[in-house]
């Protein structure tokens, strides 16, 4: 049935498009690119409710993260850490399942400045990115793209099964037009720049 429908739909589409002059593709959309992508990312991400933390260059990053997570409100005791986070970036806290964790720790593939987005591949396990109330994301050095379009062009060559763009905390204004955060996804989204 689906196969017959495919032929029928395709034939109807072909007939309809044949009767009309083709419109050319207008090419790339020219959007501005900030000179300082990191600075532009921080501005955009924080204005959408995201938070940015800077790792202390004087301490081992994993140790710094442990201290940072301990200071979060409410205090994080158990964390869920994505498997692709390298050993030196992992916090020294007990690791628990994502559904029980106070925070999830991920490694971004990169970030986009113009939209203020963290780019998260599904290989970093999605539960870590979505279930804990706070999501803490390492952004590797030199991986902040000025424009989302540039990032997507590069990502295209190595697309995983799914990619999430996270550009702030989970939000809804469906009840009484009041904004509430942390509705389904993480209520706090924290980008860590080294």
């Amino acid at each position: 049935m689906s196969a017959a429908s495919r032929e029928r739909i395709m034939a109807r589409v072909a007939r309809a498009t044949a009767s009309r002059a083709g419109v050319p593709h207008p090419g790339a959309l020219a959007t501005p690119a900030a000179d300082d992508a990191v600075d532009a990312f921080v501005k955009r991400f924080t204005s959408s409710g995201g938070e940015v933390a800077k790792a202390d260059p004087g301490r081992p990053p994993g140790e710094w993260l442990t201290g940072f997570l301990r200071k979060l409100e409410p205090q994080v005791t158990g964390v869920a850490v994505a498997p692709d986070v390298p050993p030196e970036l992992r916090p020294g806290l007990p690791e628990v399942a994502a559904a029980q964790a106070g925070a999830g720790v991920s490694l971004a593939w990169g970030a986009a400045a113009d939209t203020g987005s963290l780019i998260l591949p599904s290989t970093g396990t999605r539960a870590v990115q979505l279930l804990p109330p706070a999501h803490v994301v390492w952004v590797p050095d030199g991986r902040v793209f000025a424009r989302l379009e540039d990032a997507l062009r590069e990502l295209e060559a190595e697309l995983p099964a799914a990619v999430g763009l996270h550009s702030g905390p989970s939000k809804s204004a469906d009840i009484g037009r009041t904004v509430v955060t942390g509705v389904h996804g993480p209520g706090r989204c924290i980008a860590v720049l080294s």
Partner: protein
Amino acid sequence: MPADMHTRIRDYASRSGEIIREDPGVREAVTGATIAFDQKRLQGYSEVDADGWRRWAEGVKSHTLTHLDRYLAGAETQLEANGAEVHWAADAAEAREIVMSLAARHSVKSVVKGKSMVTEEIDLNPALEAAGIEVYETDLGEYILQLLDEPPSHILGPAIHKSLQQVQELFTDRLGSEPGGDPDTLARAARRVLRDAFIQSDMGITGGNFLVAETGTVALIENEGNIRLTTSLPRVHVAVVGIEKLLPRMADLSGFLQLTARAATGQPIGCFVSLIQGPAAHPDDDGPEAVHVVLVDNGRTDVLAHEHAWEALRCLRCGACLNACPVYRQTGGHAYGYVYSGPIGSVLDPGLLGLHEAMPLPFASSLCGACEDACPVRIPIPEMLLEWRREAQEEGLTPWKERAALKGLASVATRPGLYRLAGKIGSRLGATGVARALPMLGEWAADRALPQPSRRTFRELWREGIE
């Protein structure tokens, strides 16, 4: 829904009157929400070269639609290469059958859904429920409506016609929430129920904002994170996507993600975007083991073949035209009687359902042009409304009252400057004035007084909207 929806469209005028007379809170809530959305859109547009972006987006969409056979075939090939299964549904019944057979094949007992207009269009939930499958709408607004058993009244804010107090009462009644809870408390109550549903459900069902042909990517935009959960936790993901949702390349997606968000809510991008290529393949990926994409025609090829209406297929379902529309603001979406309401519904529904099924929607407009100015893909809605009206007249579909109104309108419409002015004057008259100025609404507005208290609120809000 569709079967009885058709008859509901026919009652547009009387239903509008009923909503305004008997449920004045709806007009108040819808007007307030749409004006707020519209303001945010204006702000969002002002931060970028909105005219340039809109022209570009119009071009990409028109290009795609005039080469749609090529892009559909490309998307199918790429999705299959990614390990996803592609299904084709000629109409709503076939789309339902496909999803039902997938549910059977994957032994599905419980489904979580992301907000999707096309699954409303194909009336999927009742079919799933009839088969004993539990269905959870997970968008907060949709969840509220599911508890109330109501269809969505706005593309973006499905429950914008509900007040805080109505949600409080509903949640106390159905979820045992403390009476008078604030939005935060209420959202937490819904989250508790839905979090369990996400974890227990076997299948996630979503729509799709875009389908990128080059990479076989289904792109989904949202703010709550429920769609990311819906496409990530259950072992099966089904995306039901209209055939008009294609985009040629990944590079096009970036502009569309941004423009859609700016048009809808003024945001630079949705808080969450999901880009789905196929089932999980990497050992560390905890995503679904099966991904199905159901491509739905259900009248779209008729629209594509139509000389004028085809341009409506560019629609991104952003809701900007609804928010800008002085007629929609009076009633919200329920009056229209079909899933696609407001200005876009009035031009799309006649194409999808057939003109005579969609009467009198092409007349539900003052032709003020606010919709076209708001539209991110520059769909010439007022022009298309006039085309449908002309066709309706040719086919003898307009009853005498409408025809008389049409005649008066036609004499003004022949001078474009004048009809725009007529629309603008109409909008400055406030609720009663707008209603009187509208050919269809005029009929009931003429002999029925409108409720005064909300009229004042409307005027106040209206001023906010135009100044």
